[in-house]
């Protein structure tokens, strides 16, 4: 009996295993068929195995099979089999039906982020023609799933008018090229011949792109130029060419405009942009701007710290006495040349023309002309009387540092960053045949010999300070002397023209004999460093030290301790000049102060706060818009680890403004920024919103401490005059009566080409959103708001607390459960 059972069992196992194999093979056959699209060898083999398996099932125990399919049991078996197959088929059919029905999923997210807002559904219902959406996603792009989800929603709501296709940009480069798709994750909307792009799948972006393609509107942005602003055609690191491309994606056409030339803002302007001017605006320009805004215009003003007046800029960089001693001319970082009455310091006149800060001014020997240099890379000649620009000398290609007339008035020479000396004829303004004279280093200073026969230049770097002397007639270099070991900042000839004195940044004073070409450098002011040197006709030497003092050496052999010390400046002194009679010496510096000293008495005659007149633009903003661009530089210690303390990183924004709502969770940064203060708007129709704030460990520093290097800012110490953080870096303003809109930001570099390389920051988004807000019209669609909750832990767990929570989370519950189990077990045992 047992044996029979065993055989029975074995047979049973065999037949069922056989059936199992047969069914699996059937499945494999189907899979192979689907995968390969045809009935291939793999399918045939599977089919064969399947048939064998099923046959085995029948034959191994034929009797059982027969009895299984006959009689009541057979009937039952068949019924069960059919019912099962039928049931499975019904389930599959139901499932497919469910898919077909395409029921809208239920959005349970807190912010309803998966449901289209009314704006979008409204827009979709207004579709007047088919819109094609091409979503370019690489297969490996994880964002594809979410894109599918969102675009499905659009498709569903559009009632068939909107169709979505997914394209692999690598598989179809031609198509990608046609739409200028550069990266995976770009979505192109197309209606007719209008296209628009979105590069993220938020509802805000997609609906925005949809709106743009439906309405096809272009907006015009005019960038004001003429004051050293950044330009959209600038492709260098500080240019705006990259952001320009982003603007194109948003149908925003950019153009440049010089208000002094055109006299007005074009009628089709949807907004104007002022991107980081360094030279001051004229009242005329401001009047044009004001009129434009009063009509309901819009403007974005980006202001760099240290510009537009105030003390945080470079101040006054060049000074010169007129040959008759009556006038003092200064060149300021505000881009102006100002003329002062030498007797009392009254301002006589202002000469404008440079588009960036001045670095040097010099009078012609007859006092009728002034030559000036600037970081706008130009050398210009002006008529003193009329203030007219007489010439722009060609040749300099980078920031120009110094220029001067030759003592005989025949030549004009300039030096600068472009590592050459340019020499022109002072009358024809044509370059000399031998000009430019190339040198291997950037140049900072120059001086003609009193007989105009030689010209000396100096410059260098932090490791070398060479001096070169040429013959002005032949243009041949006569001396090339690596006299100093750090760059030469300033030089002057002795009155007899024999010796050339040079001052290097490290405080060494060089003496070079012109005849012999030999010289030496003594570390006279090695512990403080020097920034300027001037020699009076009587041989008195004035040194400007980096500690902001002027030292007078009246005796050629005198030691530094015998110097007459003139203190008054609070920051680096850029330039010194003696009056022709040697009785006065004037110093100008970064503190924007012009000090006129009495040489004999060693006292201050008077002081002019030089070019600190506030730029009309800033005045306009403060008076008409109650927005004050503070005269400070923002230091943020809280975010310093990413870049440095001068580059605040912002993550606190206004939650409601359509400009910042889309980026609430993102970071933006502003290299070298100034803070903005909103003034009282209660008596006006203005609405001001602080858009971006720095961290609480920040401050707007309004003054510098000491420095040892003219080209680096000094240390900063926080004092009461400073503006405590968090400070506002960007403000939006709206005049509720006129409808005019303004966005003011205390930095212009944040969207320069170099800064947009940092892809994990959202600077460009911020800029574009601001532009969109500014150029919004009644016709434009109000885009759905973007909701971003800050879900982060606040306050966070401390480390110890965290570990405690973690351990209890992992262990408490299980232990409790085990204890419960033990309890149950014990009670059960006791029942016995």
């Amino acid at each position: 009996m047992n044996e029979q059972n065993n055989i029975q069992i074995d047979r049973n196992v065999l037949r069922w295993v056989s059936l199992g194999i047969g069914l699996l093979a059937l499945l494999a056959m189907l899979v192979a068929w689907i995968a390969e699209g045809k009935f291939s060898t793999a399918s045939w083999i599977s089919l064969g195995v399947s048939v064998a398996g099923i046959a085995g099932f029948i034959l191994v125990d034929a009797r059982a099979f027969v009895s299984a399919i006959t009689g009541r049991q057979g009937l039952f078996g068949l019924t069960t089999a059919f019912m099962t197959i039928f049931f499975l088929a019904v389930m599959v059919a139901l499932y497919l039906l469910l898919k077909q029905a395409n029921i809208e999923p239920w959005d349970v997210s807190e912010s309803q982020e998966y449901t289209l807002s009314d704006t979008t559904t409204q827009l979709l219902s207004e579709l007047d023609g088919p819109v094609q959406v091409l979503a370019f996603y690489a297969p490996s792009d994880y964002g594809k799933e979410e894109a599918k989800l969102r675009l499905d929603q659009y498709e569903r709501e559009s009632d068939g008018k909107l169709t979505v296709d997914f394209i692999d940009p690598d598989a179809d480069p031609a198509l990608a090229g046609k739409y200028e798709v550069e990266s995976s994750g770009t979505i192109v909307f197309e209606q007719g011949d209008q296209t628009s792009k979105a590069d993220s799948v938020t509802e805000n972006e997609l609906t925005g792109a949809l709106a743009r393609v439906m309405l096809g509107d272009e907006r015009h942005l005019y960038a004001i130029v003429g004051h050293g602003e950044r330009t959209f055609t600038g492709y260098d690191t500080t240019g705006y060419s990259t952001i320009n491309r982003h603007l194109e994606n948003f149908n925003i056409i950019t153009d440049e405009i010089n208000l002094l030339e055109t006299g007005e803002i074009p009628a089709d302007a949807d907004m104007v942009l002022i991107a980081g001017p360094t030279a001051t605006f004229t009242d005329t320009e401001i009047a044009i701007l004001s009129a434009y805004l009063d009509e309901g215009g819009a403007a974005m003003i980006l202001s760099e710290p240290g510009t537009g007046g105030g003390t945080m800029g470079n101040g006054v960089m060049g000074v010169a006495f007129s040959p008759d001693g009556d006038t003092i001319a200064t060149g300021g970082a505000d881009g102006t040349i100002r003329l002062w009455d030498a007797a009392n310091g009254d301002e006589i006149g202002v000469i404008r023309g440079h588009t960036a800060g001045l670095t040097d001014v010099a009078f012609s020997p007859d006092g009728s002309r002034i030559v000036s240099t600037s970081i706008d890379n130009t050398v210009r000649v002006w008529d003193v009387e009329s203030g007219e620009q007489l010439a722009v000398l060609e040749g300099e290609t980078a920031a120009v540092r110094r220029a001067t007339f030759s003592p005989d008035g025949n030549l004009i020479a300039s030096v600068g960053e472009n590592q050459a000396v340019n020499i022109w004829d002072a009358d024809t303004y044509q370059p000399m045949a031998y000009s430019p004279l190339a040198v291997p280093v950037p140049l900072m200073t120059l001086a003609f010999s009193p007989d105009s026969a030689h010209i000396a230049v100096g410059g260098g770097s932090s490791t070398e300070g060479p001096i070169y002397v040429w013959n002005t007639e032949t243009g041949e270099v006569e001396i090339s002397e690596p006299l100093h070991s750090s760059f030469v900042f300033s030089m002057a000839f002795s009155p007899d023209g024999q010796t050339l004195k040079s001052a290097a940044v490290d405080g060494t004073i060089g003496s070079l004999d012109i005849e012999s070409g030999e010289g030496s450098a003594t570390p006279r002011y090695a512990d403080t460093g020097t920034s300027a040197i001037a020699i009076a006709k009587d041989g008195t030497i004035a040194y400007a030290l980096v500690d902001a003092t002027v030292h007078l050496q009246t005796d050629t052999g005198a030691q530094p301790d015998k110097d007459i010390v003139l203190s008054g400046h609070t920051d680096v002194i850029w330039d010194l000049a003696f009056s022709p009679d040697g009785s006065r010496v004037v110093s100008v510096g970064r503190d924007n102060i012009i000090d006129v000293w009495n040489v004999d008495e060693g006292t201050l005659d008077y002081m002019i706060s030089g070019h600190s007149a506030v730029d009309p633009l800033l005045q306009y903003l403060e008076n008409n818009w109650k927005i004050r661009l503070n005269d400070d530089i923002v230091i943020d210690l809280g975010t310093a680890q990413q870049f440095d303390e001068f580059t605040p990183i912002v993550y606190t924004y206004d939650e409601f403004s359509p400009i910042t709502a889309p980026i609430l969770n993102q970071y933006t940064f502003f290299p070298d920024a100034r803070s903005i203060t909103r003034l009282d708007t209660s008596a006006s129709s203005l609405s001001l919103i602080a858009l971006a704030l720095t961290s609480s460990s920040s401050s707007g520093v309004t003054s510098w401490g000491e420095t040892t290097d003219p080209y680096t800012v000094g240390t900063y110490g926080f004092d009461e005059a400073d503006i405590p953080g968090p400070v506002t870096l960007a403000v939006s303003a709206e005049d509720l009566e006129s409808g005019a809109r303004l966005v003011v930001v205390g930095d212009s570099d944040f969207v320069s080409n170099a800064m947009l390389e940092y892809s994990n920051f959202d600077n460009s988004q911020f800029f574009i959103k601001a532009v969109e807000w500014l150029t919004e019209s009644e016709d434009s669609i109000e885009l759905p708001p973007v909701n971003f909750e800050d879900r982060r832990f606040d306050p966070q767990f401390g480390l110890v607390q965290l570990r405690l929570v973690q351990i209890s989370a992992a262990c408490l519950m299980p232990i409790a459960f085990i204890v419960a189990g033990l309890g149950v077990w014990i009670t059960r045992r006791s029942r016995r």
Partner: protein
Amino acid sequence: MQFFKVIGRSLRSIGIVFSHEFNLFFTSPIVYLIGSVWLFLAGGFFALSLSAINTGQYEPDMLGMFSPMVFLMIFMAPALTMRLVAEEYRNGTNELLYTAPVRDWEVIFAKWLAVWAVFSVFMLISFVYPLILFSRGNPDPGLIITGYLGLWLMAGATLALGVFASSLTQYQLVAFFVTMGTLLVLWLAQQLTYIITSPKITPVLAEISLVSHYQNLVSRAIIDPIDVGYFVGIITVFLFLATQMLSTRRWSS
């Protein structure tokens, strides 16, 4: 009227077997062991994700706990279900159930409900973890709801598979390995799709894969009727098959 009477009777029968099975679960030490292991692992994964959430690197959500759940169920489901039907055969109590005035499907359904309820108890205990998130942060409640829904349904489906496997044999161990093996194969198939992408097979696999529907529910705060329908379908199919198995086994004993 008759219809409601019939439904009422069925519900009563189901209820009786359900409470019997449910209580039976909690009198055996196995459940406490499995439960505590599951809670330990779930809590452990959650705890691990807490570090990143705390510093704000990740949004506060329960994904850290939910992600490895499918893999865990490969072992949990067989452990919980292996004895459900098989033991009745081993014990001889199948004769009681077969001859009592209860229908086969009522018994199967009640057994599945009971083991699902047991799992639900584990799940309820784990609600402590999202509470931790709410205490300090502001997680999206919708996401947590869909996550638990996905877990609950996925568990229901794997447990239904386990019930079916248990109905195939009288040996608990066999049921255990059948369930575990099947789930493992399914899980592996899903993993394969990440490596092998064929435009024809991959979408089909994604459609029938337990993991993908689970992910759909867990990772987004939306409830797609397709995903819910999928799980309900799986549960129905396996409970149906188990019922058929029971009926079939009446013929041979």
